[in-house]
């Protein structure tokens, strides 16, 4: 995210790079631009100050299982979308898994989470059932919201998952409201809200920064910075290079971390939660990560070269987790057993969803009012 080499308004064939007139021209622009997007993964800033303790191998194995389940569910959903089983906008989180799994494991039962429409990974990390999740995305009656919410509205109050949202940044004040409820009731629960780098430019984000910081709400702002706001690289839209500087202006503690490493995420969220629980107020965490699939199913991905994605494949959450496990002496065979079990679980989940009946038409008119 440090586009220092190239200026965003680079001129190509006498036209602004921001407005290519043809597909061929678009490609020229993209390749010219891609060099300017840093694909470096390890950031700096306060991550150096963050103490990252080694997590127990058992916990890492559980995290691996969860992250893999997310990855395989997302792949299954993309395949189902290609088959025409899923309509609308579906945003997968392939490459983002560590942010969700690391955070969920760092928080307690009773804590709350809200997230952006790229939220399948949060749903599963917070304990939602993959079968009911896939059924929901497919619009079936066994979906957690009976087919009314779909991909962009994962929700599971029993797990503290209070909703993903279709409007960028709209879920952020919701989490602040959950934190406010904790604060008003004198409870020690915290709320965490996930959003992308693109959400930094919504007004409500800044309104919430200010109120959460002023009122010292037990809230964690977690930015999954994958460096693209939908199809536009962040350097094209941000007035500053390091987006964690925005919350700093509101007097907030910030951390810029490696969002592909579950142990780093776990450590950062644990630290932020501890601050929140003792009344020290909100923390902003910027997890640097990368979206390995398109913005949404059907994304042509003309805005980034294949080499950039390939480069990121070498340092993505599952690879990082496998390396950690291997370094702990977990052998290939044990990992393969988990791979097989998770694969089977997701296959069963897909079968469950595909066999789930369509909702009854009468369901359309329920839940408008209580």
């Amino acid at each position, binding site marked *: 995210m440090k586009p220092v080499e190239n200026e965003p308004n680079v001129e190509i064939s006498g036209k602004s790079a921001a407005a290519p007139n043809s597909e061929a021209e678009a490609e020229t622009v993209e390749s010219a631009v891609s060099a300017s997007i840093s694909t470096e993964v390890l950031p700096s800033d306060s991550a150096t100050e963050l103490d990252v303790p080694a997590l127990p191998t058992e916990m890492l194995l559980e995290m691996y299982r969860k992250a893999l389940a997310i990855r395989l569910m997302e792949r299954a959903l993309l395949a189902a979308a290609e088959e025409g089983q899923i309509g609308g906008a579906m945003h997968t989180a392939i490459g983002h898994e560590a942010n969700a799994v690391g955070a969920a494991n760092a928080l307690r039962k009773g804590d*709350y989470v*809200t997230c952006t429409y790229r939220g399948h990974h949060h749903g599963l990390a917070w304990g939602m059932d993959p079968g009911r999740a896939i059924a929901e995305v497919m619009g079936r009656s066994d*979906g*957690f*919201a*009976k*087919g*009314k*919410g779909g991909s962009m*509205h994962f*929700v*599971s*109050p029993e797990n503290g998952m*209070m*909703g993903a*949202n*279709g*409007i960028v940044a*709209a879920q*952020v*004040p*919701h*989490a*602040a*409201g*959950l*934190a*406010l*409820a904790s*604060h*008003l009731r004198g409870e020690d629960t915290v*709320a965490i809200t996930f959003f992308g780098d693109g959400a930094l430019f919504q*007004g*409500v984000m800044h*309104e*919430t920064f*200010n*109120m959460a910081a*002023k009122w010292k709400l037990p809230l964690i702002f977690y930015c999954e910075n994958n460096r693209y706001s939908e199809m536009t690289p962040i350097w094209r839209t941000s007035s500053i290079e390091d987006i964690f500087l925005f919350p700093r202006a509101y007097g907030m503690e910030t951390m810029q971390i490696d969002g592909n490493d579950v142990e780093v995420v776990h450590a950062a969220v644990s630290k932020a939660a501890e601050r929140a629980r003792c009344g020290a107020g909100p923390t902003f965490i910027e997890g640097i990560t990368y979206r390995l699939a398109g913005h949404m199913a059907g994304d042509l991905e003309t805005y980034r070269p294949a080499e950039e994605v390939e480069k990121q494949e070498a340092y993505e959450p599952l690879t990082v987790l496998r390396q950690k496990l291997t370094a702990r002496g977990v052998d290939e065979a044990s990992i393969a057993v988990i791979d097989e079990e998770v694969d089977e679980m997701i296959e069963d989940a897909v079968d469950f969803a595909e066999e789930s009946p369509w909702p009854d038409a009468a369901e359309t008119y*329920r*839940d*408008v*009012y*209580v």
Partner: protein
Amino acid sequence: MRRTTYIQAINEALREEMARDENVFLIGEDIGHYGGLFRVTRNLLDEFGEKRVLDTPISEQAFMGMALGAATVGMRPVVELMYMDFTLVAADQIFNQIAKYHYMTGGLLKIPVVIRGQQGGGKHYGSQHSQSVDSLYAHFPGIRVVAPATPYDAKGLLKTAIRDDNPVAFLEHKMLYFTRGEAPPPDEEHLVPIGKADVKRAGSDVTIATFSYCLYQALEAAETLEEQHGISCEVVDLRTVEPLDTETVWESVAKTGRLLAVHESYANCGVGAELVARAYEEAPYLLRAPARRLGMAPVSIPVSRVLEAEVLPWKEEIVATVLEMERR
């Protein structure tokens, strides 16, 4: 029965509900230390403290969204919008979020939020501080819309709204704040049901269905029509805009055969248009003359009192319209 102002009735309803249920809290601009721009929330900070009456920065989107978040875990936020025009500032949180959340989650979450504040013209506040948003709110499913005209109804409906598990837009009117009327004694269990209209004046020739401040304009018009033209108007106070109590309106039209809907939000695509359309769909056999609607003229609301009076659908226009209907 004792008499209070409309403001006092609302203040009492808030105080009583806050005392009854600790999940009820107030959030909005200048409502605590200042007591509200129109003094509706005065003294409540002193009585309940800063954790129950929250003064916010001028961030309508954020505090509206926070109300939703708090409501998902059983809090009952009452949000004050200083002017209901600011609905449009917080529109995403109100219409995309609060109104839809129960549905989108398949009923897993309830959003018992009350959004209250004053709307309407008559005080020369101009285009961005005089709008009536009842028709706008009513357009979106998932949110109840009430707009009481009297202290009695305001108190009873606000207490009901706070206890309702649905989001409720509670629309006050700046011209009503200092009006006085009967109200039950403080701390009496006084609830007025949402979705129930009330006949405020009995009559036999024309039914005027209205709500909010237009009720008083309609009652004055009815007086004039009776005295000067011998026309007897029945005035139905809808009180609730969503859901519309068409049953009570049709009962009245069954007597009069004539229906005029009056409100201060735009006539175009407004509540009145809806009511008239439903009359033709559901009870056309009751109508002996074409049903009519009156609303705000299709212009932004001007400041000059002369120009503002021109666009408001008040007494003179009601009288003129009823006379036209009677000639048919």
